């Protein structure tokens, strides 16, 4: 589904990703862990197409397409979804209106008919039910005045509505207390299907207690330096990121 080869990304004249390789297949959950400044968020932004996060070299194939050649809105319509670490507040834009506009824009791109207001509302109800989200969230402006937990849950709700093929969760656990974390993780687990893949970017192992990954990768200094299964996350939890630095020094 997703194949990243030797990806180099420069942000504001600083090399952040320095030859990253990653392959993700349908249904898989990949956790990307690493110390601050390793390039975790850069990976998410690069895949979603944020301006200023352009690849200097390397390639990203997504279902046979050159993902990097697509505009951000086209990537979304092709099935890439980024759950933001810091969801943006957009005062004045109603959450429901925004979601319907997004959904219809994606459908239009894919040559599908637009969804009418009634169909949309019943889809909303259905997803809210599944995720146990209160519908007062829908009446408010996008993320405006939302608590940290509400913002993250709104990201998961958007994901549920847009039904992406690949979801990238950028530090979805940051700023959440344990109850909020559990609820967000529960939402993600409900959206796991044999077709949908996840890249879960996190600094802490804690989130992976609730979203159990198939693979864990350690990102340090712009590269994946170690890959393994969920036990690798536990090792990181015990030993911190220092041993990676030590290991790198030994290698050097």
């Amino acid at each position, binding site marked *: 589904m997703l194949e990243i080869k030797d990806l180099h990304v420069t942000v504001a004249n600083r090399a952040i990703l320095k030859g990253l390789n990653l392959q993700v297949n349908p249904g898989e959950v990949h956790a990307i862990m690493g110390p601050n400044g390793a390039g975790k968020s850069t990976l998410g932004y690069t895949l979603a197409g944020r301006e200023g996060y352009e690849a200097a070299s390397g390639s990203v194939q997504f279902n046979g397409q050159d993902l990097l050649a697509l505009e951000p809105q086209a990537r979304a319509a092709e099935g890439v979804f980024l759950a933001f670490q810091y969801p943006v507040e957009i*005062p004045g*834009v109603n959450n429901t209106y*925004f979601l319907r*506009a997004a*959904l219809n824009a994606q459908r239009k791109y894919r040559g599908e008919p637009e969804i009418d207001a009634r169909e949309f509302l019943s889809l909303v109800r259905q997803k809210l039910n599944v995720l146990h989200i209160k519908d007062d969230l829908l009446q408010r402006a996008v993320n405006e005045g939302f608590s940290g937990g509400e913002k993250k849950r709104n990201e998961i709700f958007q994901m549920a509505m847009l039904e992406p093929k690949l979801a990238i969760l950028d530090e979805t656990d940051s700023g959440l207390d344990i109850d909020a974390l559990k609820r967000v993780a529960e939402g993600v687990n409900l959206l796991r299907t044999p077709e949908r893949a996840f890249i879960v970017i996190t600094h802490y192992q804690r989130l992976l207690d609730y979203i159990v990954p198939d693979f864990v990768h350690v990102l340090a200094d712009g590269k994946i330096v170690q890959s393994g299964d969920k036990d690798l996350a536990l090792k990181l939890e015990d030993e911190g990121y220092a041993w990676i630095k030590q290991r790198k020094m030994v290698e050097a």
Partner: protein
Amino acid sequence: MSQLLHALSGALPAPLREPLPGLPSTRTEAWRYSPLRALEAKVRAWGAQPVDAKNVSALDRSLLANALALAPHDLAAANGAVLTTTPLNPHFAAARSAFAQAAGLSRGSTHALHAPMLWICAPQLGAKLVQAQQQFSVPDGSQALLVIEQHDGGAIDSLTNLLYQIDVGASATLDVLHLQCAGAAQSVIERSEITLAADATVNYFELQCGLGWARHELSIALAGSGSCANVTALSLLSARQHADVQLSLWHQVPNTRSSTRVKAIADGRSRSVFNGKIWVAPGSDGTDAQLKTNNLLLSETAEIDAKPELEIYAEEVSCSHGATVGQLDERALFYLQSRGIAPADARKMLIYAFAAELLSRVDTVAAHPVIKQLIQNRLADQIGVGDGA
């Protein structure tokens, strides 16, 4: 009265080739960003030509009459008595008072606003100079709605010069909805003087979405204790539009309040000017005056001149002001795009949200759909479609 109006209402009709006496230059602070040279030249070039004067039957063109369910009889008085589009004297320096007299309006006549009233000003085809002044009063303890609409007068150049004087009685509330939708060929100069008695409130909403040259001097005297002014203004500018709002809030006695929110969105080669002055008289303790102007600059060739001004001569007051000029939030644009929304639509969504946020200050909810539609219409064809729009 502004210097310009003073000049316009001067008693001596000057020959058109002579300089217009008393017109302010850009050396005058209040006119610094709104030069009158081009307007003056234009008006002078019109020359003396007879114009077939008719009353405007503008009711069927009203933007708000339906939405607000204004019954025809509410409008009749305003329609017949107020709409005076006849340029009796083609000279720019025609005395407005003489003009008003000829049009059947004596300067002293006052409309008591018992019911909602609609005042529509649209230059009739061929009318170049439209001058009118009107006095309104809101009786003590009553509630009134005044709707002012300026419509597109077509392709012919015109100058509309209006003066409103409004007295709001004790414990009365006046809502004003002012839609300035004049056409590209029109210039509009307005002055509104509002005086508030004790415990009176005015809620003034103004939308400037016309395409020509517009200036509005809004002067509110908070003359009675407990009086309150809420002013909300939104300018949607594109092309070569020029819109100037000069607001003065005169806190003349203790314990008065004012709250002002002004927004401008400037695209193309347009220019928005705002001056918001809060003046607090000596001894007017307990004054609460808050003024905020937030502006969105959408092209490199547009200009926004926003200036809040505080002049305070009392001790115990709570006054604040703030001004921002910015561009669309790139993070928000990317957020919308990352959800599948194309950049042009994302821009429109953000611009619309920026503008429509002010509607929360308009209590006349029935007017919201009309105002929203006017904003949408401007976004659809002129604003936010890229530089040089």
